[in-house]
């Protein structure tokens, strides 16, 4: 019976990490549904981006209030992981505050003291975050796509953090030997008096309960990630690593189109020639994207990384002027559809069964796509380098090249370019008239 807590702990840990591993596998599988794109070049620039933007939070502080508050929670998250490591080792081997012996009481005191201060700062930050979302009602948290689950998700995460931090502080406050030692209990010494009249046994029970709920809470939270916008705490790192390194104005040139255009323009090609054998069985390339499998894996990774902060949408000229387009919604829709496709694959023994739906129309409407000015404000604003614009353009490509479904005025513009080399109906022979018009 002596080893029962250790065994229970090991089982809890195994279940927690087991589920997490399963979800991570699903995540990988879904992201791999995307088309191939080479993002392994220029490793040093990519690493630098990741360190600066994800690890260093460089783009978060563009908005100082939320940026600094986020920094507190982020640093808290990173550093408190040391505490979690201790809890895991203690739990498995039945030790108590093992690091105290290893690191020496003084250094351990500094460490735990820092955690306690961070825990309080996190609580303060979380309170402000909650107020911003629910009381002050900052505009970017009120958009149409933030109704229902996304709004609740945002609040759940905050409640989770409150619970975890409170448990951590309670655990320390009720740890009699820890309080007696008096090193590192910078905050918990002020909570300890609440439990003054309690017997040693009751204190110990509360301490153990807080300890257990703290680690179980962390395991639950770990598994909550996959279903939540909070996945960004993991994916921000690969996402910034694999992000586009080219100038933001540079759109991809579709290679399949290049081949066809070059054939079309080559005077030596026999237009009546029968196709060579190896081209016969080729599935004709689909131009642009109408569903998640037409997007690249980086775009799908983007969708899972999005934490729905809405900085993109709050800087989008179309959204600011009341149009339906919201770059955040583009990312949320992409993730929702990808999840749907993933579940479809799971339910059908590993193969996708046509469900009569796609990203286009069922999630994202042409009206949204056509409202984009391609100004790159959303890309610039994203704190983790998500690129909603690339998805918008890929879907426009599908609308235009596969469905000829551009707005009439754009069709006229394109006809003009084709016929007279300008978007307006002017004669190409008049192209130099401006010289003599003064």
């Amino acid at each position, binding site marked *: 019976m002596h080893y029962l807590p250790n065994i229970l702990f090991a089982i809890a840990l195994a279940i927690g990490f087991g589920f997490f591993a399963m979800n991570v596998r699903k995540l990988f599988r879904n992201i791999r549904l995307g088309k191939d794109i080479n993002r392994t070049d220029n490793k040093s620039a990519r690493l630098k981006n990741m360190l600066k933007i994800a690890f260093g939070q460089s783009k978060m502080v563009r908005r100082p209030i939320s940026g600094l508050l986020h920094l507190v929670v982020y640093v808290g998250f990173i550093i408190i992981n040391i505490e979690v490591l201790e809890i895991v080792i203690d739990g498995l081997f039945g030790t108590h505050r093992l690091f105290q012996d290893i690191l020496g009481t003084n250094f351990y005191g500094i460490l735990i003291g820092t955690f306690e201060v961070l825990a309080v700062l996190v609580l303060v930050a979380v309170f402000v975050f909650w107020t911003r979302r629910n009381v002050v009602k900052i505009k970017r948290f009120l958009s149409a796509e933030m109704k229902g689950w996304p709004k609740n998700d945002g609040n759940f995460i905050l409640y989770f953090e409150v619970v975890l931090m409170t448990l951590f502080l309670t655990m320390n406050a009720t740890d009699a030997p820890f309080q007696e030692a008096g090193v590192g209990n910078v905050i918990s010494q002020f909570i300890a008096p609440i439990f003054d009249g309690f017997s040693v046994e009751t204190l110990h029970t509360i301490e153990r309960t807080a300890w257990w709920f703290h680690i179980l809470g962390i395991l639950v939270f770990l598994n909550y990630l996959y279903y939540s916008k909070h996945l960004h705490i993991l994916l921000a790192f690969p996402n910034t690593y694999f992000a586009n390194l080219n100038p933001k104005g540079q759109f991809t040139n579709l290679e399949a189109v290049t081949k066809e255009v070059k054939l079309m323009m080559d005077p030596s090609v026999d237009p009546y020639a029968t196709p060579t054998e190896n081209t016969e069985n080729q599935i004709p390339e689909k131009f642009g994207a109408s569903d998640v499998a037409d997007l690249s894996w980086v775009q799908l990774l983007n969708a899972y990384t999005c934490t729905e902060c809405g900085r993109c949408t709050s800087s989008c*000229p179309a959204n600011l002027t009341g149009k339906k387009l919201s770059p955040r919604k583009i990312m949320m829709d992409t993730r929702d559809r990808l999840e749907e496709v993933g579940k479809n694959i799971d339910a059908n023994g590993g193969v996708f069964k046509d469900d009569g739906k796609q990203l286009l129309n069922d999630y994202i409407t042409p009206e949204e796509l056509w409202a984009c000015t391609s100004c790159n404000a959303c890309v610039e604003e994203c704190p983790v380098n998500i690129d909603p614009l690339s998805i918008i353009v890929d879907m426009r490509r599908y609308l235009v090249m596969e469905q000829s479904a551009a707005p009439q005025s754009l069709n006229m513009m394109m006809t003009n370019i084709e016929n007279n080399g300008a978007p307006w109906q002017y004669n190409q022979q008049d192209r130099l008239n401006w010289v003599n018009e003064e």
Partner: protein
Amino acid sequence: MIVPTMAEMMAQGKQPEVLFWVGAAGSYDDKAKKISRAFVKILHQAKVDFAVLGTEESSTGDAAKRAGNEFLFQMQALMNIEILNAYEVKTIVTCDPHSFNTLKNEYPSLGGNYKVYHHTQYIQKLITENRLQINDETLKGKRLTFHDPCYLGRANDEYESPRDIIRKLGVNLTEMKRHKSTALCCGAGGAQMFKDAEKGDKEVNILRTEDALETNPQIIATGCPYCKTMMADGVKFKEKESEIVVKDIAELIAEANNL
């Protein structure tokens, strides 16, 4: 005004130091044609040996590409590249950030490799090479704000060249709240110029004009023919056209230097 074409240059066995890519707006649009002419005057003053493609120039395909028509874009690109390469063009300057972006970033992988300048970068270069001076008396003390074109700013990270030149004009530059990387689009990019806006509660150019009006300017400076049109329309909508002029930086330099 003398504007030699590449064909004429070639006939004389000459190779100009730079090709001026005029662009469709710069060739046909009344407001943009003024920018083209102002820039040519600047090139003449700096004694730059330049030429244009003239009737051999065709749309870069930018608007088609942003609209999603990759076929049309690549056809235009390959046609233009064929001509540019036939004339052995090495350096290009353009007053249109959209052409600038497309020529600089999207032509190389299709076989068109050139050193491409936006006109504000080229003017900046002419100044540092002591080939051009800007008179800081003519516009001295005028209140000016600068609207960053998306395809120069965010798209290509060029925020300083236009500002460096503006400072040389002796004007009083006040930045809008949203400027440089946080600048708001004028509403014309991504082929919006050629279509009606989707349903909303405001036009983008009106919102951007309001940003500009907050700085109480006498001049709204731009570096893009489409931005110029959008901002000028916005100023007109606000009935401020008697107090505020919307001009491209090239026009301001031509004015400052009495060209």
